[in-house]
């Protein structure tokens, strides 16, 4: 197979951008993706089989057969997790990755989110740390992501955001009924509600039409292609440059290194299960936090007996996602209008600045309300089954609002990904294994956030409320997974440097949420994209200068 300049592993939020940036700069690129490229034909709206409600499986991968993971409970007992189970911490396996089916909230982190340790100090038992880069370093790349991917929304209602040079490229979608109910209530409470930034066309943009406002959005692919992910923005540009080849159905086995400890490419199983080698001047790992760590750990050799980049046992540590908490409000009037995407209004008043709490998070109204979601969201005194449950479904389905948000998670070095010593996937590769749990301060923040959501709902007229705030005994990762290849200056406490380059190997890069030092109180997609643009820029600069070729 022809040697190329760069092989990129994973065609998701970050990998698609890196492939495009490198290809457009003139590098030859092979983009490898384990999943397929779904077309409009595959984008059916299935309420029990999508990427969010997975009782009948994941719509956009991986399949339950042959892709296990292992999670270790509080007592140290390992359990098998299937991809459609919550304990699997799934994101997706397809071209576009999570961005094919995400809700598409497109947040910039706040300046403080990059300086968590300086702002709060590290709670005991945590690995809370500052990023080696700042909001200001990322700002031009946030802007680039907003314009190239296509973001709608309006920040003008809130003072809680970092400095920005340009407004968002598209206005927000018109408000839905929940927006109309929640906005005046938030203002009465002295809060600053505004239109959520979304990677979704509100007007024609990038050659595609606007959102049709169906509410089957988060967890589904968009049948009118109005939701913007890497699969319908940067990846087509990468391919049309003539410098990038996308190979789907390809599972990377390991990163190959030479006798001097530099990467020479990757070994992967192609769609027919045949082992192939793709040689390259540089390797970019963009497989998302869990699979990126797994690939590095599975890339063992004489020089790297514990895996690539893992000299100080840092790969896979600091695994974090978000602790989602909030409340359901029940009203004596209809709140439901079935106008998508559902989530429309947010506040960032509570992301920082609460005495006694090391962080906080954004709060917003929830995306979809399909009947199956309501089954376990009824008032807390509702019987779990029987006539009372059925009547409560009728009573509350159209008269409730959920406010929920991602609480900034306090990372620990024990919450981590390793590879399982025994369990293999269908290619015979050791699978990801989760151990450790979430730092308890995370739940203290989450509890306060849930009460704040409840107060907002009550101000809006809710006659009953129930809190959504639980504690978990295991790691939290899921679609917002991050942190496993921490960015930092010190090789003993981080995996990559501020340019996303492995401390250990100068031609291997990890560019995805793995490098997040902390994960903000927001959906991470836009930050992943900004980092991909930022790291690609430095890669291209270096390529044009000293070069990587040996």
């Amino acid at each position, binding site marked *: 197979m022809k040697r190329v300049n760069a092989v990129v592993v994973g065609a998701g939020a970050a990998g698609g951008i890196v492939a495009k940036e490198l290809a457009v700069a003139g590098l030859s690129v092979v983009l490898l993706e384990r999943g397929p490229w779904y077309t409009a034909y595959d984008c059916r*709206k299935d309420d029990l089989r999508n990427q969010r409600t997975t009782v009948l499986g994941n719509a956009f991968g991986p399949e339950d057969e042959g892709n296990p993971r292992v999670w270790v409970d509080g007592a140290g007992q390992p359990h098998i997790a299937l991809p459609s189970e919550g304990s699997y911490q799934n994101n997706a396996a397809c071209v576009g990755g999570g961005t094919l089916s995400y809700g598409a909230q497109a947040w910039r982190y706040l300046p403080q989110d990059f300086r968590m340790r300086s702002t709060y100090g590290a709670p005991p038992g945590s690995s809370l740390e500052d990023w080696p880069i700042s909001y200001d370093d990322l700002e031009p790349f946030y802007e680039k992501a907003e314009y190239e991917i296509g973001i709608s929304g309006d920040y003008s209602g809130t003072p809680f955001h970092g400095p920005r040079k340009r407004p968002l490229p598209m206005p927000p*979608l018109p408000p839905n009924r929940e927006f109309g109910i929640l906005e005046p209530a938030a203002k009465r409470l002295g809060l600053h509600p505004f239109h959520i930034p979304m990677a979704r066309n509100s007007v024609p943009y990038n050659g595609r039409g606007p959102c*049709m406002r169906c509410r089957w959005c988060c967890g589904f692919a968009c049948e009118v292609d109005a939701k913007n992910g890497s699969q319908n923005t940067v990846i087509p540009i990468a391919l049309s440059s003539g410098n990038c080849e996308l190979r789907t159905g390809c599972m990377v086995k390991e990163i190959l290194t030479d006798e001097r400890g530099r990467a020479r490419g990757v070994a992967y199983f192609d769609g027919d299960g045949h082992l192939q080698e793709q040689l390259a001047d540089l390797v970019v790992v963009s497989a998302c936090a869990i699979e990126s760590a797994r690939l590095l750990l599975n890339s063992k050799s004489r020089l790297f007996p514990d895996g690539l980049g893992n000299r100080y046992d840092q790969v896979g540590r600091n695994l974090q996602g978000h602790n989602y908490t909030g409340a359901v409000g029940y009203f004596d009037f209809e709140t439901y209008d079935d106008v998508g995407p559902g989530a429309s209004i947010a506040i960032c008043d509570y992301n920082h600045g609460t005495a006694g709490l090391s962080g906080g998070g954004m709060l917003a109204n929830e995306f979809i309300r399909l*009947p199956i979601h309501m089954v376990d969201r009824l008032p807390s005194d509702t019987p779990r089954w029987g006539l009372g*449950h059925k009547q409560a*479904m009728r009573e509350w389905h159209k008269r409730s609002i959920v406010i929920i948000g991602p609480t900034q998670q306090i990372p620990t070095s024990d919450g981590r990904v390793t590879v399982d010593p025994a369990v293999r996937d269908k290619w015979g590769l050791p699978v990801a294994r989760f151990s450790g749990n979430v730092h308890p301060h995370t739940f203290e923040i989450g509890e306060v956030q849930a009460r704040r959501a409840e107060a907002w709902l009550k101000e809006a007229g809710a006659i009953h409320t129930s809190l959504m705030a639980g504690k978990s005994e295991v790691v939290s990762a899921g679609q917002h997974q991050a942190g496993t290849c921490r960015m930092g200056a010190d090789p003993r406490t981080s995996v990559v440097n501020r340019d996303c380059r492995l401390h250990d190997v100068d031609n291997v890069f990890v560019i995805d949420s793995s490098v997040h030092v902390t994960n903000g109180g927001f959906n991470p997609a836009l930050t992943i994209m900004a980092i991909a643009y930022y790291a690609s820029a430095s890669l291209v600069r270096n390529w044009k200068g000293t070069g990587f070729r040996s």
Partner: protein
Amino acid sequence: MRSSRKDGLLTRRQFVAAGALGSAAIAAGCHRGQRNAWLFLTEEQARTLQAICDQIIPADEFPSAAQAGVLSYIDGQLMRHYRRHRDAYRSGLEAAQTLSRRRFGQELAALTPAQQFDLVSALELQEGHFFALVRNHTMEGYYGSPRHGGNRDAVSWRMLGLGEPPVLGRAQYDLRKGAS
């Protein structure tokens, strides 16, 4: 999704092959002169399951779980995505029958509605894992999309005041202009 359909076919073929080899169950069915309507369940299991499902979602002015096709949903999924729950259903339904015979001297399906309620409440305490499965699967079959074999004629969606299909956006979308 294409490959999951393939999985279903394969399983179906394996099921037919298995049935042809060990034909005792089929012979018993023929003996009664009726074809088993179910893919996985026996007639007796189906009767028991129906009684449990109809306690989880009873009839009122809207249909019960079984009337809305929940058994078709569960039976169908036991041949597909819920193959891994087959043992839980086999042993759970047997435990329910044993409990019913011990407590009331007859099978669950033959009890009065009040007795069935008592029995299903007892089942929830004694067979918690099995009951939680049936409860969740019943909710999926009743409130999920009709495409999966339950929620016949979208009856639960209409009960909740939703249209069918429940996607307002699609109906009002004009591809030339975007959403109205």
